[in-house]
């Protein structure tokens, strides 16, 4: 039996796909696949660092996609969950996928397949939430700015939605946790890495980065939010189920409740 190997990649999706390529290509007995900043060498396995190669990554991408479009999106979504040990799960998933004819991604009685499908679903849910919970604030230099702090790395997934929707305004969505954002300059969306020091999420302190009109509209929105509530039907449990508390500080209508 071959000695098992832990593959280390750079944390990008392409890096992961390259690692999968290398594992298949060199018939490595994979002990684990880890990102370089989280790596931890095993007692009985060697480590090997994989350098990202877009060509190789693309071949894996196409290979999975030829099996099923659904599977490739499951793989991508699940990867963005950044869940502990998801890489090895995905590797097993891809192995199983490649071994069978087709339709394996639908085998919900297989625990790996079900796990990946459910994980992808979770990320999809977070993506949908972010499409809902982004709150733009208009800055004085005419950029609509929003902070988010999603559980999963969903910025790459939501950029198309916002590009299609707000095609005539400049906007920037900034992920506070992962310290990067996506910026739309009326033509393209690009990734920007910033290190913002004072994150604007407290309404009581008005920042002079934003226009005065901005705060008026926030007040109107907060008023509107309050007046749509029917007091005799109050249901706080349902409310927090739909709007979990961890998002409240970024929602102007919930800031007072934080």
């Amino acid at each position, binding site marked *: 039996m071959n000695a098992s190997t832990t593959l280390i990649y750079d944390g990008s999706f392409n890096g992961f796909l390259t690692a999968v390529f290398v594992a298949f290509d060199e018939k490595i007995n994979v002990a684990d696949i880890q990102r370089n900043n989280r790596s931890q060498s095993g007692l009985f396995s060697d480590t090997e660092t994989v350098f990202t190669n877009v060509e190789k990554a693309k071949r894996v991408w196409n290979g999975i996609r030829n099996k099923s479009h659904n599977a490739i999106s499951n793989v991508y979504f699940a990867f963005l969950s950044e869940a502990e040990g998801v890489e090895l799960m995905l590797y097993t998933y891809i192995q199983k996928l490649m071994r069978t004819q087709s339709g394996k991604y639908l085998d919900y009685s297989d625990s790996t397949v079900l796990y990946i499908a459910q994980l992808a679903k979770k990320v999809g849910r977070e993506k949908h939430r972010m499409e809902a919970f982004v709150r733009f604030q208009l800055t004085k230099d005419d950029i609509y700015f929003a902070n988010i702090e999603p559980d999963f790395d969903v910025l790459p997934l939501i950029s198309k*939605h916002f590009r299609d929707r*707000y095609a005539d305004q400049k906007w920037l969505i900034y992920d506070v946790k992962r310290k990067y954002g996506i910026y739309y300059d009326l033509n393209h969306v690009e990734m920007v890495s910033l290190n913002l020091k004072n994150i604007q999420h407290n309404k009581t302190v008005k920042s002079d980065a934003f226009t005065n009109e901005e705060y008026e509209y926030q007040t109107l929105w907060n008023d509107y939010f309050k007046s749509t509530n029917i007091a005799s039907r109050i249901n706080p449990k349902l409310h927090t189920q739909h709007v979990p508390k961890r998002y409240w500080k970024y929602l102007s209508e919930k800031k007072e409740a934080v």
Partner: protein
Amino acid sequence: MNFNRIREKLNILADAAKYDVSCASSGSNRTNSNKGLGNASKMGICHSYTADGRCVSLLKILLTNHCIFDCAYCITRKSNDVPRAAFQVQEVVDLTINFYRRNYIEGLFLSSGIFKSPDHTMERLISVAKKLREEENFNGYIHLKSIPGASDELMYEAGLYADRLSVNIEVPTISGLKLLAPDKKHEDFTKPMEKVKNEIVRYKSEQKIIKSSPKYAPAGQSTQMIVGASGESDKDIMYSATHYYKTYNMKRVYYSGYVPVTHDSRLPAIGSQVPMLRENRLYQTDWLLRFYGFSVGEILNSQHPNLDMDVDPKLSWALRNLHHFPVNVNTADKRLLARIPGIGMQSVDKIVKARKFRKLNWDHLKKIGVALNRAQYFMVCESRYWERRDLDADKIKGMILQNSSGKFRNQYSTQLSLFN
């Protein structure tokens, strides 16, 4: 923008519009054109939720709460003493655009009290939608209310700008309508519905031939009924809902538990409890009819004119029809799987796909997400264990209730509480 004035109006007119439950923003396929603003999301997005747990997806306001009618159930009726206000067309447009740009909303839901005449009111509503579409290049979602009694020409025009049109039937029975809204005729409600339905059908068939023909109310029509205001049975409500689904191709019928807003001898008194559980059961029934292949007569009929409050309608149907069970999940067809209590459409889908690979056992089903506490009495799978006892309906019901908890349990439990 006169901030204070707008603020005041918004408070009055949003407050008056909140009893309209429809807040769906789904079903439209309008796309952004020429780098304009907005793009409808097919699945709809709820941008926030109120403290009562309802979704906030659209800016839901009345154009005005002045009204010439005197419907007993309505907060803005003529004889009610409330502050009145009216928006100008441009004010609504500005609010919508600015809220939309900040990603607060999916679009606009515009309703209105009826001032002067139905046609006059409808015209105003249309002018807001028209301005949004044509001057602001707005492609977000617009839901307009069809004003009962509006003319066919106006209904036609409304559909050209709106994604969804709705007229609220409010009172499910004609006799109830006579009692509570004596000024309105049943035909006033159905005529605009009929017109919109016909236009949708016409535009759909045109679209098959000419791809570029314009959209007409792409998200269809909806309506709403008040529950618990005029003493109707669940059977009355659901039969009437089925009628609207069938006759007018409704996308949705909403059920709104009546919130007492006025003192009126014909209605429940102020402070009486909103029938939220009943509303919940009606929605469950609605789903069974639309997605699970049930017909209304199976769930509600003259022997069972009302829904069970302590168990959901599917379980209650299954308990009355034990001769259909147990069902084998590894062989039964989709339609039958959907009838097992505790198995929803998502699970049905997963089961059908998974069983192609191997026979499923309890473990698989549990992981897939089936509610086994209910399902176990009604199914068999690849396992030596299944419910072998010959249990009768009451016994099964008792065991299910014992092993589960429901959010409304305290409302119907006959068990006395120890401390009050």
